[in-house]
């Protein structure tokens, strides 16, 4: 398998890697960098569990992204959201609104939610639901997840 040298920045730390061109970003994060906070749910871009943020604004599916194409990219995983030991407001809201059950979709769901609110700080419930269509949760019926995003939106507006 051909390889390519890349440098990717994950949560503020630069990693210079020689990656096989068929490796996905998810595989590189989990298996090579041993950062398991980003989850494998389907491997085919259907469930959103592997969602990470590219260059601080765009949510991408790391299972569908070839690592070789990520040279120079800034990737944020859910482990990179805390600042000075304090949870991101979206994380805070997922905890306070009890939006977490088994927790396996949570990292991807939180990353997606961060980008939803970055794009649209005051989304309607319908807008939130539409944006979440690519992130599957089998535990919650999305009820408390939607409430958590609404709560985070309120908190972020008032601070």
């Amino acid at each position, binding site marked *: 398998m051909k390889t390519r040298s890349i440098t990717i920045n994950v949560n503020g730390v630069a990693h210079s890697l020689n990656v096989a061109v068929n490796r996905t970003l998810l595989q590189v994060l*989990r*298996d090579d960098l*041993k950062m*398991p*906070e*980003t*989850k*494998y*749910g*389907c*491997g*085919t871009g*259907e*469930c959103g*569990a592997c969602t990470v943020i590219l260059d601080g604004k765009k949510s991408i599916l790391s299972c569908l992204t070839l690592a070789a194409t990520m040279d120079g990219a800034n990737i944020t*995983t*859910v*482990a990179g*959201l*805390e600042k000075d030991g304090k*949870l991101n407001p979206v*994380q805070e809201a*997922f*905890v*306070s609104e*009890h939006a*977490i*059950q*088994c*927790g*396996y*979709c*949570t*990292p991807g769901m*939180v990353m997606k939610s961060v980008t939803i609110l970055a794009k649209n700080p005051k989304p309607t419930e319908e807008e*939130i*639901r*539409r944006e*979440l*269509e690519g992130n*599957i*949760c*089998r*535990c*919650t*019926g*999305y*009820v*408390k*997840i*939607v409430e958590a995003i609404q709560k985070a939106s309120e908190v972020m507006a008032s601070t």
Partner: protein
Amino acid sequence: MSEFAVIGKRIPKIDAKAKVTGRAQYAADLYFPGMLYGKIVRCMKYAHAKVTKLDLSEAARMPGVVKVLGPKDVTQKGYNTGVLDIMVPEAAGKLLGDIEDQVLFTDHVKHQGDAIAGIIARTEEQAERAAEKIAVEYEPLPVYLTAEESMQPDAVQFTPLKPGNFAFQLPAEMFPNNSYGWGDAEAEMKNADLVIENSFYTPKCKQCQMEPHAYVGYYDDQGRINCWTSTQMPKCVHAKIARLFELPMSRVKINQTTVGGGFGGRLGMIGEPEACAMAMAVPGRHVKVEYLREEDWIASESRHPGNYRMKMGFKNDGTPVSCQANWTANRGAYYTHASGTNFTMGAWLVGMYKFGALSYKAKAYYTNVAPCGAFRAYGNPQTNVAMEQTIDDMCAKLGLDPVEWRIKWAKGIGDDTWILGFKYPSAALVQCLQQGAEAIGWKEKRAKYANQTGTKRRGIGVSVMNHTSGAFPMLLEHTTCTVKLNEDATAEVITSCSDLGTGAHTSLKQIAAETLGFGLDEIHMLVGDSDAAGFDIGAHASRTLYVGGGAVKAACEDVKKQLFERAAIQLEANVDDLDMKDKKIFVKGSPDKSIDVKTITSLGVYNFIDPATGKTVGTPGQIQGYASHFPPHHSPPLAACFMEVEVDIETGAVETLESIMAYDIGRAIHPPSCEGQNEGAVQQGIGHALMEEIYYDKNGLCLNSNFTDYKMPGPCDMPKFKNILVEEPDPFGPYGAKSAGEGALANPPGAVLNAIRNAIGVMSLDVPATPEKILKAIKEKGIK
């Protein structure tokens, strides 16, 4: 002001922070130095075939390959991934026909995805590449997808132990005439004014827990097999792995990792046998086995599909006279849960209504699809589809109100539960029905939706359910708990109770804090370690809070008793005269005569002889409380689900608009967890009614083993939802609690289908009620 300090409080879940930061560790998240990767090689081409040749030599020479394993390289002892065989007495197990018909790396492929070999390599990719080099030849066998096909006399036999591929029926020795129920249903049926009989098909659905199955196995230098798994049942897996590999249990350790959802999908063993077999082949090396989503789908268990023939008879005033139900299941390739689910399906029927007589019969036949097993609510949704639609059909024919009829004829306190001979100790279904009807505007909407015209027509439906809190007395119910007090008067609560994301560990901690009178941050839950904790049957039958909570409460009461006994000595008082507040034990009426709990626990550990007196102060011995708890009942929760839908008669599409789950919870220990269970269950129930079914082609190859082709309700498919938790404390549950969890998935299907019926007057005999089926029914009925 609540009578409780922490029960009923909306505290953050104890695992929420770890999960929201990505620090919670699921099995696939574990890494060990020198860890190898195991790949289970599966037959993907055939659903039924004999392996005629298996040559692993080329695979063994592939880069990075450490070991290849065929059937000859591993134990060929039979096993059963289900757990019913260890939950019933041996004699009952024999009658129920439980058998061990599975084997590691089979040469008789009985469903697509059956495992035929294993490969261990340095990386996952190397293992996958090597798997492609296995030389295997098959002799294809006829594929049986339904009971009707596999019961044919000339059919290939799945196992010599079940002639005719007839896996299960209710044994006559335990169920006279192979029937569960009461009275003479056939004779009583003749007294009915109205008899309704239909055959319903209910689908094979997948649990779709978000974490695919994953394991790490490790055979250590003491000759112990260690397995990290997100099983729902660590102690049953402990026993079953020991049995399979013929090891004493002291040489097996199960580490339960964070569980990424269960819904029955991790009930019993799944890939633990393969993962442990691979680890035993490379002692001293960790082996990680991760299922792909597709593997999880085709190789692990799902809900039983089958045909439900439902016959009910009523008097003209609605009096339920008789019910005769016959269930025929397409059971899948192995025995696993054949006895359990196919019994409980009838049990949920038995527990619901006051029929004059009732008979439930079940037959289950092997078929060439993934084995059917446990899926949340364990047979209850299937029964709900047939039972609740028939009730509404009767109400429509007799001009009765479905809510009023259910209030009148549903079982309640003093009636037999799903286990005949056990009476409902609590029941708040009437309140559930009344409060739910009020909240959704039942009367107004039923009137409003009569005689609609136009393309989009609305309907409103109701469905009720009974479930259980633990499986006693059908199955063993047992949880142990040890509570160890540290010298600073904090506590370690040690159990094997599982938390599948339900909030069970949080709720158990609340029970411990409430019972001990300690603060929440003074208690730690030690879970997931089969060495440290005693027996617990595992998470099934909605039992963890009810049985596990009972164990935690009893162990904490044991601690408290010991504290009071020691305080009585110190205070020179009678135990009965003592009380405790703010971690101080005092003589009632004389609060000054008191001792700190911390003084007692400290003296228990640091107990010295006073050089001046030559005597010790306080009672020596670190305090540990213990309970081995067998619950006396199964306190069934009941619930009413209301659903409003809109049916497009041009496309057949059904939209769910509003839903209410009014749930008889007994006591909500951690209300957000109870709500969360209902919210997720309604999502799965809507999926069951409208969308979800695993499809196979005529060769038994799965057509939709992924989230695109197997559609589940997404965020935009969910109705506006309201929870109603009716709290009428149960006499047996810890602090009055009954189970949440499974039950709320039982009745949304009936509610959705009854709402469709209300909108367009069509009963759904074939579930899921997809737009194609609805449209077909609309055309057949000539609805315009």
